[in-house]
């Protein structure tokens, strides 16, 4: 399948994933240095889901994600500086510092919010898709959620409405095996936390290797085309892994060492780098690329740290439109 993807496309995906990883590594570093307040939820290890999924979308398509959503925002084109400044609570942030790490948003890129209450984004995404249907467009909405989200009511209400109204939305589960600190199999009664629910809504449910950007692109692509054609929603479950803890300084000691080792050996960026090398890209070229990214992020972080915090005079802005 990867044979069908052009080398240029693979290069673009690889770069996008590198950038996400660098972004997240910087956030972790800043958090560890006590420069980020509150909490952060990183997507290191889950880059392929974001990049593969974003690649199938067009302008006008909408994406909603969670507190663990930096990768989705970057994959759809959020300015990394605006994201980083937001996480640092600066007025240059994509939300003027009001949102923080859990709420990166850029509607100009189709990013209709990152939500911090588990499951909340799902009915809202369904509403976006309903709106696309009412307005007679062929826009599609993608909405991301974790494996641990599948027990919550909002997930089921949203999927149910979308299935009943045949709405153009694709529900994409990033199954990283953990519901916060709990192994997912201890908190859901099915093998595939999300895909196994699809039959209860008479919609397609697919499982895909979420660390294979090419496969993600293909499977999400099919679901998006189905939605765009007016055939209704699907659930895609991408099996993946977060390399680090759930949030903040979580050391993730609850994970068996062999499990971690196995998944580390299946790094999604390494995988696409391998494909590129098979196609003749040189290691030194890849190293140069990585060095460029590091350099760009040095500058982004520096600028963001130097940016001003919002002023207290603006406290009430945007509470109401009027």
């Amino acid at each position: 399948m990867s044979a069908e993807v052009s080398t240029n496309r693979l290069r673009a995906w690889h770069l996008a994933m590198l950038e996400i990883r660098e972004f997240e590594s910087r956030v972790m570093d800043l958090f560890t240095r006590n420069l980020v307040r509150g909490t952060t939820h990183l997507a290191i290890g889950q880059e392929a889901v974001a990049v593969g999924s974003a690649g199938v979308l067009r302008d006008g398509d909408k994406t909603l994600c969670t507190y663990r959503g930096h990768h989705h925002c970057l994959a759809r084109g959020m300015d990394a500086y605006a994201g980083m400044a937001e996480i640092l609570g600066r007025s240059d942030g994509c939300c003027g510092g009001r949102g923080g790490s859990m709420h990166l948003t850029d509607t100009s890129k189709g990013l209709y919010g990152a939500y911090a209450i588990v499951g909340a984004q799902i009915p809202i995404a369904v509403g976006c898709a309903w709106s696309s249907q009412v307005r007679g467009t062929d826009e599609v909405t993608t909405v991301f959620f974790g494996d641990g989200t599948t027990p919550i009511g909002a997930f089921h209400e949203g999927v149910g409405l979308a299935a009943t109204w045949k709405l153009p939305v694709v529900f994409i589960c990033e199954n990283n095996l953990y519901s916060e600190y709990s192994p997912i199999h201890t908190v859901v009664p099915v093998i595939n936390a999300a895909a196994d629910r699809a039959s209860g809504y008479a919609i397609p449910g697919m499982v895909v290797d979420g660390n294979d950007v090419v496969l993600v692109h293909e499977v999400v692509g099919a679901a998006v085309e189905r939605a765009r054609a007016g055939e209704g929603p699907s659930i895609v479950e991408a099996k993946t892994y977060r390399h680090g803890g759930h949030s903040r300084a979580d050391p993730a000691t609850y994970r068996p060492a062999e499990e971690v080792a196995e998944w580390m050996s299946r790094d999604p960026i390494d995988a696409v780098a391998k494909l590129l090398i098979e196609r003749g890209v040189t290691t030194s070229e890849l190293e140069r690329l990585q060095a460029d990214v590091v350099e760009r992020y040095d500058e982004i972080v520096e600028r963001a740290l130097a940016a001003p915090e919002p002023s207290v005079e603006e406290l009430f802005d945007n509470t109401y439109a009027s």
Partner: protein
Amino acid sequence: MTVMNYRKAICEGIARAMRRDDCVVFLGEDVAAAGGAFKSTVGILEEFGPVRVRDTPIAEQAIIGAAMGAAMTGLRPIAEIMFSDFLAICWDGVANEIAKSRYMTAGQLQSPLVIRVHNGAGLGFGAQHSQSLENMAMMTPGLKVVAPSTPADVVGLMATAVDDDDPVVVFEHKALFDVKQDVPDGDHRVPFGQARQVRAGSDVSVVALAAMVPVAEAAAAELGSRGISCEILDLRTLYPLDMDTVLASVSKTSLLVIVEENPRPCGWGAEVSSIVAERALFELDGPIVRVAGEPVPIPFAAPLEAAAIPDPARVVAAVESLM
């Protein structure tokens, strides 16, 4: 002018908004084909068709989410939650998502939508279908809160609500559905944040809302016959809150009685009282008396339900206690 009851006014308000603006859509449980559980939306489906008017499954979180998602992307939804009690099921969507998203995203996500709920006691529907919950909305920054007491206000406040770029929760009081009144034709609008002087008076200011407005009026009639002159204000909206009118009235009468249906603790009247106690304490010649719902779940049996919410006799007694 057309005479219509409160129930019909709900329908009229929705229809006028939908005629004015193609972006207005309407959804809820059995609001379309059946015309609503209270028959307050009969004919909307027929006039505006099944794309703009949709019956939903019983899934209040989905209804609220659908409304928010649609509002964020160019529509102006009106969502019905059949009883205000059911806001408890979808309160995350209302209070954590809809109310906060504009602020949290520096204005990027906007939810110009209206949530209509059937509110209040008095009909024997029991504890889970009879609450007055305007205070739950009022305590949530980001929401506008409307509670009309008359058919004309139902229509006029709906026009303002639908055009407003902020999310608005409209509490329609079930016990008022048969109240009739002349309603202006055309583009009748009632602005938010303007209390209505229901009755001018000089001895005591009585502030009320929704079904408590007629209760206050009945009390004022009785008190009038005893030589006590009440000024009655109907707040109409709790956010924005028209404290200017309340304070002006209090500075005239020097006495304040608040009549609210919700159970007393943290009711909207507490907020009104505390603002007066902060800004006009020295204008007062007597305690601020709150005549509020009793702090109990609404009981089913007729005498208990009647005793659980304010009635004219309690308002009369409260006013007389100040004389």
